[in-house]
């Protein structure tokens, strides 16, 4: 039982990181119909930016904030203006293909231009163990889970409570009526891209200490985030949190109780079951076919 709880808890911590990436993914989808295949690379690149800032002598927190600014510019503004805006009129698949191209370019740009090795990343939390009711947990797991939850919940609070956030949701639900109501649609969409960039940097800050920063780290992370987003419900931002936690926990449990070599198939199996029986995801709304 203690084993189970231990696995469950560390699964939650991993799942919370998936949830961060998945949340950005669903936000982009809702606001602009963008399926970002480079979401994993959007986490990979900031890890290297932060490493660069830290090795330039900045403390980790300052490096994080600086990386947020760089990411908001590169992964927010440049990505929106350079890739999404010109492709928006063609529909969904050209954006998918372009972001696939972007992910290949980012991955290999880092590999060729910086390094093909895995780089250690400064730990956010000191290594400490706690025993709670017989279950050993690390401070890093607790901190990761707490920080990710705070980020996800505050993003949601921002969307639900503030005027800007509600305007963003209005844009996501119906772009035309939003612009009739006087909402600055392009700006709201840019905010979404900026939030996605910040969520990606945060995910990088949490994932890189354990899994190291490497040019191809985005590949599995991105896929897990997609699966998590779809499992939870693609058009619902609470779904991303639920999906991320489900994937993280069940992966961890399956690795221990079923087979570690089939760990990566767990997210896939849940995903398949969900899309076959409830294609809109656990918390999502149904979308009708259009002629």
């Amino acid at each position, binding site marked *: 039982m203690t084993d189970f709880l231990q696995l469950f808890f560390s699964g939650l911590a991993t799942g919370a990181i998936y949830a961060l990436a998945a949340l950005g993914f669903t936000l982009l989808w809702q606001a602009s119909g963008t399926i970002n295949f480079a979401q994993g690379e959007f986490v990979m690149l900031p890890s290297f930016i932060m490493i660069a800032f830290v090795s330039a002598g900045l403390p980790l927190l300052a490096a994080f904030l600086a990386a947020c600014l760089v990411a908001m510019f590169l992964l927010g503004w440049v990505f929106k203006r350079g890739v999404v805006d010109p492709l928006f009129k063609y529909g969904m698949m050209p954006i998918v293909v372009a972001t696939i191209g972007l992910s290949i370019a980012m991955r290999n*740009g880092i590999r060729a231009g910086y390094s093909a090795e895995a780089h250690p990343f400064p730990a956010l939390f000191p290594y400490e163990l706690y025993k709670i009711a017989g279950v050993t947990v690390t401070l890093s797991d607790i901190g990761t889970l707490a920080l990710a939850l705070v980020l996800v919940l505050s993003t949601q609070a921002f969307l639900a409570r503030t005027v800007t956030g509600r305007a963003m949701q209005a844009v996501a639900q119906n772009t035309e009526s939003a612009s009739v109501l006087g909402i600055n649609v392009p700006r709201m969409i840019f905010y979404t891209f900026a939030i996605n960039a910040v969520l990606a940097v945060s995910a990088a800050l949490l994932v890189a200490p354990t899994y190291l920063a490497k040019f191809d780290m985005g590949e599995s992370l991105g896929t897990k985030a997609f699966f998590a987003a779809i499992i939870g419900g693609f058009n619902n931002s609470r779904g991303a949190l639920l999906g991320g936690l489900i994937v993280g926990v069940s992966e961890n449990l399956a690795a221990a109780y079923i*087979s570690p070599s089939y760990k990566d198939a767990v997210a896939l199996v849940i995903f398949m079951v969900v899309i076959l029986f409830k294609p809109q995801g656990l918390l999502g709304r149904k979308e009708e076919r259009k002629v």
Partner: protein
Amino acid sequence: MKKSTWIAGLLLLAMLVAPQLLKNYGIYLLTYWLIFIIATMGLNLTVGYAGQKSLGHAAFFGIGAYTVAILTKAGISFWLGLPAAAAICFVVGVILGFPALRVQTIYLAFATLGFNTAIWLVMRNEEWLTGGTFGINNIARPSLAGISLNGNLAYYYFTLAVALAMAALLWGLLRSPWGKAFTALRDNPIRAESLGVDIRSYTLLSFAIGAAYAGIAGGLFASLVQFIEPGPFAVGASIMMYLMVVVGGPGYFFGPVLGAAVGVLLPEWLRFAQAWYLFVFGIAVVLLMIWLPDGLLSIPDRVRARRQSRQASAARAQAALAATRSAGAGT
């Protein structure tokens, strides 16, 4: 004769002559290219003509390769192994088609991507069957009517013959009512359904036939490289195949020829700069989507459309001029 027929003829001639001028490695590369043409021809049917989203094509490629490898290792003839590879892929393709009946576009893309991961995990983990990460080596090349296809040149011509046969088959299929049904499925599934096209069977068929092409390509691949391991059949390879189709031009018959050249020949040739090549390739894909979302082969169509619209507007201007003149002459 049409211009495209000429180009196809010249291409064929070049493919017949080129290996005579090349060294062993060049011939090997051309064979590699042909194999990817066969595989992406199938994907072009699924993606370009029938409009399904498949990011799992490398899984079929792998199933075909492992089928031929395992069967020839067990002493069964390559000539039984290759049809078996196609048949197994056809059946698995039908099965993979079922999610496509429930979900479309991006959901389908992820479902097929996930399927690819699952197949890859089986290849890597089930050592009793696939040799795991050690793979299967010393896969024998076949001989045909007493002629050994062991040499690279002989194997090249054999692959070329198979590729031509598969292309002819696809050409015929696309010209048949089936082909029309596939494009109807792509252009507007609901309208196609209301016109009596059985979209259920055609969706499944588009996956199954595409998969069978990949199976044959995989079988040829196994006996070309003579050593297979799970690496070339991972999700990345599927994504690359999808990009080959998109870059060449989905729904263009010769798209895969061009796409596979960009995806297979060019990177091998520029091997010394591999990561930078992929970096440039990725950027090029982004730019291509922005400027030519229908792929490289849409350039002639686009030029033609532009010329026609220019001619039409010139004709309109002339007609307007003539009209004002005759009006002027009237007064």
